[in-house]
């Protein structure tokens, strides 16, 4: 087990190094930052000075090594556009995105698993057929359209919920949270649904198909033949056996929720890292883009590591070498 974890951590580091290389390459290959930073009126001396100051005159490998060292310490340089350390800007923006992602992930998982189980158990029911048909809409409509539709219905027509922003936020330590004010909570609803709807339908359809598969297994028949209650058969015996594939996909989707919050944040003008990234692209603010790329890859890798460990918690067959009974 320890060997497995170490191997996975090692693999994760390799992945991060590769992503780091891509992120770093942007500095060298996507335009010349010197052009962006210095205005029209510049001298060759200015350019040389700045080039030296930023370390751009050094060989590629040395620059990469410096970049990695700085990145490992959370130092991604200074934003070209805002002139402030990138790490500071990211930390400021991260709570908004993480809170939004957490709420929509919770929404997607709770509703996805619940509805998935329901539609699998009541396979031929009217309600589950209806849910399955509606879920097709969730899968096929693009996120921005769902966002705009929700804004139109709930913000414009009904005026129940705000159409943009985070509402009032409270500072708790260095973390700005919208969970503690009613306007903050209200502001979360529409973006969270928009962001989580696709993942929710995906999880629901996956849980349903896995459940249908598991419900055909002999041990489910045997559980019924032993006279267990339907609830025990469905949840204790069946649902648990669907969890390995469901957790795999859910883990990846969780990463996707954070990574692709960009669109939702743009539609709802949500002040998170996604919106920051979009603005950074418009201004070719490479340090911000590179840092965002690294942040997302760290999250993906971290989530995958957790998913792998969860397998062990769920499936005893993977916990090899327990030494019992062999």
């Amino acid at each position, binding site marked *: 087990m320890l060997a497995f974890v170490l191997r996975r951590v090692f693999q994760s580091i390799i992945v991060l190094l590769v992503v780091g290389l891509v992120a770093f390459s942007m500095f060298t290959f996507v335009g010349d930052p010197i052009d962006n930073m210095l205005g029209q009126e510049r001298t060759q001396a200015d350019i040389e000075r700045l080039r030296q100051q930023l370390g751009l005159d050094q060989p590629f490998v040395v620059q990469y090594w410096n970049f990695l060292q700085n990145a490992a310490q959370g130092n991604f340089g200074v934003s070209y556009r805002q002139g402030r350390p990138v790490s500071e800007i990211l930390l400021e923006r991260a709570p908004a995105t993480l809170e939004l992602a957490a709420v929509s992930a919770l929404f997607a998982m709770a509703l996805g698993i619940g509805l998935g189980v329901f539609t699998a158990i009541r396979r031929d029911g009217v309600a589950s057929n209806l849910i399955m048909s509606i879920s097709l809409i969730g899968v096929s409509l693009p996120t921005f359209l769902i966002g705009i539709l929700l804004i139109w219905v709930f913000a414009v027509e009904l005026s129940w919920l705000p159409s943009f922003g985070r509402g009032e936020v409270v500072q708790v330590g260095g973390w700005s949270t919208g969970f503690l004010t009613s306007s903050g909570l209200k502001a979360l609803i529409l973006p969270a649904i928009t962001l989580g709807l696709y993942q929710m339908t995906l999880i629901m359809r996956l849980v349903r198909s896995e459940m249908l598969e598991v419900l055909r297994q002999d041990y489910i*028949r045997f559980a019924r*033949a*032993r006279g267990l209650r339907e609830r*025990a058969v469905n949840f204790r015996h069946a649902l648990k*056996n669907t969890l390995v594939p469901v957790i795999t996909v859910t883990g990846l989707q969780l990463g996707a929720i954070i990574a692709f919050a960009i669109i939702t944040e743009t539609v709802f003008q949500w002040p998170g890292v996604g919106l920051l990234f979009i603005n950074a692209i418009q201004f070719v603010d490479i340090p911000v883009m590179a840092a965002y790329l690294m942040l997302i890859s760290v999250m993906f890798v971290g989530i995958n590591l957790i998913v792998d460990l969860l397998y062990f918690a769920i499936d*005893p*067959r993977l916990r090899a070498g327990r030494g019992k*009974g062999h």
Partner: protein
Amino acid sequence: MTDAVLSVRDLVVEIPTRHAVLKPVDGVSFDIAPGEILGVVGESGAGKSMTGNAVIGLLDRPAHISGGEILLKGQRIDNLPYARMRKLRGAEIGMVFQDPLTSLNPLLTIGDQLSETMIEHLGISQAEARKRAIAALDEVGIPGAADRIDSYPHEFSGGMRQRVVIALALCAEPSLVIADEPTTALDVSVQAQIIALLRRLCRERDTSVMLITHDMGVIAETADRVAVVYAGRLAELGPVAEVLGRPRHPYTEGLMGSTPAASAGRARLHQIPGSMPRLGHLPPGCPFHPRCPKAQDDCRADPAPTLAACNGRAACWHPVNSPESEAAE
């Protein structure tokens, strides 16, 4: 027989399909007395398992009971609502499935699976259930039961798992156990042990057994009476020694002829020509007549012979080995 544990009366199971309504079980009747072991033999698809599933109320849709009745200790159970039937399963009727490798939930310890069954039916505490689970494992011959109770199914061999399955089927002390091909998936060397175990435990508790198998040897060793099933109908029903020793139905005789015997030397094994008709393509008259060496004109005419219409032993118009047929020769 009113004191029978299980009475099946003219049971009909139907599967509606787009083209026709199939009858995998068609007018099957039998009784099982307390402590009796009834063997049910037949080819694959003859309706053996379907009958077992109908008794415990676990037919897979769209199959359903469309006629006849099933009585457990004199009470009808075929028309019970799902919730009441559920309470009988495990508590009154236990079931052992064919494949022990897939019958146990891989993610729960065998102790958990035993406990949940006993807590559900016997209403005992978690601690008491654990104690009884260890005793149950001990009884089915799991060595070191107290240490193995927290093991997962994959940590046991196939034979050991079938022992666990038997412990599970018997742990709430049902009065009837349906064993659906309990040894088919096991090694030959383990088969005899499992059958002996099942027989011993049921004798000790006076539990009746409906033993579904296609293994004549198992039937000969274990069962008190035997029911031979062909194309969803009973072909022959009677005490084991009589049915196997002097089969009356030509089909049973054919089955006996196709069982290899160690003493028979290297003689070519007899086989019944043709194969069992598919459901929905049953011939008129006796379903066995196209393969029967003794078929005559009345066999091809409606209606098909039933046990009740014949002598109660073999559903055949021209039984072999019967006193009448021998007198005629």
